[in-house]
């Protein structure tokens, strides 16, 4: 188990012919982390056959309610207009044969406000970019609801997104289509403050009834760090190879214990 010895395989009789020394890692390429059916090297990721089929069916039913679409490492991401959110679920269940609801969740794209920002030595959280950017298939504003559904029969899945307005964060409920959306929407309601029209009973799921605020919004601070600074702050040492610990970019990473 010494870290620097090459991984010599102890004798069990099998695969004794393999050389003990290190094989170049490229030698037998295994099928693990390359999930796309086709190599997706270029920036503009091409759609796989299943993704094109899913997109064609969605666009066939929803028409111009499909605002944007993209590929995220082998998963089709489709953004639909908010008024077509429930219709999208119905189409996914019937036309796409996606009978399995994986999750419904909220998203806040606004970067979290930081006290000292770059210059500060606060390494309690990794430094995130300060400008607001939106992920695959874009977003209108700060808030989004996204969900993933899958087919147990066709073995494909699609991530659906829709925009939620800042002023009145509300979106149609999926409970009538996927009964499992009940708890996911309750969670989303208390964590982000989005309401779901048509949900039978939006009440607290995880948090106590008198809890105020929406913890997963980016402007909600992590209270544990407010009450008491991150204890790791005191024993952050610069890594020997990193050189200048002042470079604000890398300070967050150097806290990682190895």
């Amino acid at each position: 188990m010494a870290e620097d010895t090459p991984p010599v395989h102890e004798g069990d009789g099998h695969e004794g012919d393999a050389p003990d020394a290190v094989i170049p890692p490229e030698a037998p390429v295994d099928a693990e982390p390359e999930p796309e059916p086709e190599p997706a090297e270029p920036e503009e990721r091409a759609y796989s056959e299943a993704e094109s089929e899913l997109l064609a069916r969605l666009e066939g039913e929803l028409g111009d309610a499909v605002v944007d679409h993209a590929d995220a490492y082998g998963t089709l991401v489709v953004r639909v207009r908010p008024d077509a959110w429930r219709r999208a679920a119905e189409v996914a269940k019937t036309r796409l044969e996606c009978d399995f609801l994986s999750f419904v969740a909220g998203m806040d794209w606004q970067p979290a406000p930081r006290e000292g920002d770059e210059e500060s030595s606060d390494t309690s959280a990794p430094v995130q970019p300060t400008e607001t950017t939106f992920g695959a298939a874009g977003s209108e504003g700060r808030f989004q609801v996204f969900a993933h559904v899958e087919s147990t029969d066709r073995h494909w899945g699609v991530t659906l997104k829709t925009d939620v307005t800042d002023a009145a964060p509300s979106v149609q409920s999926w409970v009538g289509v996927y009964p499992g959306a009940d708890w996911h929407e309750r969670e989303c309601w208390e964590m982000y403050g989005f309401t779901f029209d048509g949900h039978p009973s939006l009440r607290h799921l995880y948090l106590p009834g008198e809890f105020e605020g929406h913890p997963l919004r980016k402007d909600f601070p992590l209270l544990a760090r407010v009450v008491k600074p991150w204890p790791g702050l005191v024993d952050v040492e610069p890594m020997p190879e990193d050189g200048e610990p002042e470079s604000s970019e890398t300070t967050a990473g150097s806290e990682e214990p190895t």
Partner: protein
Amino acid sequence: MSARAGDVEIAPEDLRHLADAQLNVELDTGDMVLNLGPQHPATHGTLRLVVRLDGERVIAADPVIGYMHRGYEKLTEFRTYPQVTTLINRIDWLSSFANEVPFIWGAEQLMEIEAPPRAVHIRTILTELSRIATFLLFLGEMGLQVGALTPPFLGFRDREHVLNLIEAATGGRFHPNFNRIGGLKDDLPWGWIGETRDTMRIVFDACNTLEDLLMGNEIFELRTRSIGIIPGELGAGYGVSGSNLRASGVDWDLRRDGTPYLAYPELDFKVWTHSDGDSYARYWVRLQETRESARMVIQLLDQLPSGPIMAKVPRIIKVPEGEVWTETENPLGQMGYYIFSKGATGPFRTKIRSASFSNVSILPWLLRGVYVPDVITILASLYFILGDIDR
């Protein structure tokens, strides 16, 4: 003075009894609210179940969760990628190693790093070992819920052999924190492979013993057959996954049907399903899957490649901008992470899809109309971990 009921002559004094009987039938017994938990042995933690009863029959059930909510989705935003694995070990604490796999896989996809084959194989072995450990506990525990005291001892005893293997390889019985982006922390220790082969024999023996003890046992069958039936289609709509869904006849296993991950495409294994969808079927499917996992471990040991266990990764891990959804077949069902990265050292947001959360969300539907003692066996047969519900 006599009255007629049908064609039978009834004496007046008998008529009085008849009236009493009628009165009893119409008596409204009223509903009773029974609070199961938050500390009940069948709940594996702190799940509270508020059930409304009419006599012995449940007319409404409302699970109250959140006693163990730790806010992991928020906490990941304050951690670097390597630190997040420490957290997610504690989601489903019985199969912690399997929790790490989809997250690391997602980060590796974003960074376009591929773990070397030996690391991939060892990851697969440890994932299957944690599945065996989790299921052995279930196979024993289920006996306890129907009043059999021997199976839990056997389950706990034999699980310990598997946990010893995990501890020997990773250093932790429950929280290995062994995965690294691009590979693993260490190689396997000396003698581990032989030990694992021996332990797999113990696992097969344990499965046979438990099968002998419970399957075909009259009490066990009475308590589990046609109790808590989940129709496959409805289960999928609720997001019920894993063995619970396969016990409802849905032939869907991400190891075979999902995006190829780990070394599963190279393995030869059978996906077990049962058409009944009741508690018995869930037990049966997990029993078969334990054996199947042991077979997979042996296959993996036979074809374990040599080579490095870490790919080349930068010292400070920065994950390029992008979003990725990874899902794996974990012991309790589908586990997934939706990682949003903005190019920093930590994730911008992580959506954690845990299996038990969705598995338990079907309870209000499933418990309606069952008898109180069956609530216990249904809870046990769904097999959830509280950390996996509350995150």
